[in-house]
């Protein structure tokens, strides 16, 4: 049991709070219904940010943990619920969810792009590569890089750029969603 949790619990006697503050806790409670509604709203403006299955999984998590959090009081329960929702939304980012190039940072993507343009092989150390990226790397290593590879190289670059756009869109969408959950009544 952490001291942090102990101290937070200690500060939160519901009896000692004015009615207005208790009501604020109630209206600010992060319920599964609120999480579901916020995700649906986000999906209307940011289509394909989360699949239906992923949305259901995240709302299901909020439902399942609500019972376990019953004994925690207002603010603590809210902090845990919001934190878990934030982490799950983050875990659903295409940065971690799609393809093997998911582990590449924007800086690494930029290096790869520059290397490709210069016709050089970029050794992406300790990265798990997609078969597609492995193939390109292998062609470089064996000196088999030819003009006919150009099409697949451009396709790969487009794929990486598109992937980066998806990551950025996801980041913006979850920021809006978290703001809505934190601020909404």
């Amino acid at each position, binding site marked *: 049991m952490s001291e942090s*949790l102990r101290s937070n619990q200690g500060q939160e006697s519901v009896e000692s709070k004015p009615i207005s503050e208790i009501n604020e806790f109630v209206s600010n409670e992060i319920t599964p219904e609120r999480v579901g509604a916020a995700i649906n709203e986000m999906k209307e403006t940011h289509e394909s940010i989360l699949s239906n299955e992923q949305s259901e999984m995240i709302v299901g998590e909020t439902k399942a943990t609500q019972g376990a959090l019953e004994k925690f009081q207002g603010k603590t329960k809210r*902090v845990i619920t919001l*934190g878990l929702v*934030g*982490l799950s939304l*983050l*875990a659903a980012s295409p940065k971690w969810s799609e393809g093997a190039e998911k582990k590449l940072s924007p800086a690494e993507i930029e290096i790869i792009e520059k290397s490709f343009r210069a016709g050089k092989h970029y050794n992406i150390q300790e990265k798990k590569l997609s078969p597609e990226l492995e193939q390109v790397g292998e062609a470089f290593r064996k000196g088999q890089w030819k003009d006919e590879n150009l099409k697949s190289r451009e396709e790969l670059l487009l794929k990486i750029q598109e992937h980066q756009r998806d990551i950025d869109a996801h980041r913006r969408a979850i920021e809006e969603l978290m703001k809505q959950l934190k601020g909404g009544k």
Partner: protein
Amino acid sequence: MNKKLEDFLKTGRISQDDYAFWRSRLEDVSFAVCDSILELFDLLPDKIGWLRIMQERKEAALASKNNEAWEKIVEEEASQFQALSLSV
């Protein structure tokens, strides 16, 4: 990354591996998300390593849309918080 969160992670209360993991996950995350995660870490500093393991499993389950794996994660999460609530 939100500076407050970065400072929190740098305090040395977490392992090098946990620091590297959370640094990579949170480096380009914007304010409201960082803020919520910081509050959670601040509340449960002893659970940051456990949250890391859960986060890796969540990433894999969400990527593959594996409901069975997800339900196990959620069950473990609920048990962990149930245990915490009993010790309060």
